[in-house]
């Protein structure tokens, strides 16, 4: 699954777009985050990490499929 990463999350993952290995076709955001934290433990240290799915903030229960546009959203600081 292709996952966009921004800001400090991009620095941690090492790329603006990561190809994240997914065995299941569907996965809940909370399970996706567990897998993510295993692969990139430094993400755990962020004050927060939101996940967007198809340009909307997702809840922990939102179900992602591998064709969705997923992004890692560390705390925002625009303006």
């Amino acid at each position, binding site marked *: 699954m292709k996952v966009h990463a921004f*800001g*400090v999350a991009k*620095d941690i993952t090492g790329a603006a777009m990561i190809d994240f290995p997914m065995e299941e076709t569907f996965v809940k955001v909370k399970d996706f985050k567990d897998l993510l934290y295993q692969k990139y433990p430094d993400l755990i240290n962020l004050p927060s990490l939101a996940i967007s799915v198809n340009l909307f903030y997702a809840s922990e229960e939102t179900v992602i499929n591998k064709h969705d546009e997923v*992004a890692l*959203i*560390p*705390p925002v600081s*625009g303006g």
Partner: protein
Amino acid sequence: MESHIAITTDINIADAYQMLVDPKSGGICTFIGTVRDLNNSKEVNNLFFEAYEKMALLKMEVLAEEAAQKWPLNKIVIIHAIGKKEITEPVVFIGTSSVHRDAAFQSSRYLIDRLKEVVPIWKKETYQDHSTWINAHP
């Protein structure tokens, strides 16, 4: 209500203002965020902004719609800069025009507050010897 939403490398204040001008409006309020030389007592050399553009534009559209539901607005402009920004350069331009000033002031304040909370844009501050991403919201 007409809105103009953009993410750009350079914000032109005069052009942004022109998009707020409206024959039915008696008041235009704008807020411009600029790069300042000091943050938390640290000397800032410059800022760098990165956006998740598609989502940021969508969020900004939604905020404009929210503001237009809360206040009687004629024009709304929300522009955010990306890339490297030097001291005094504008990084965000918010503007609203309305029949009366109350709506213009309140909606501009609302839009900049909400933008800082929810729009996926990130700021990296560069000081003399290092740089760091700023974690502001939440």
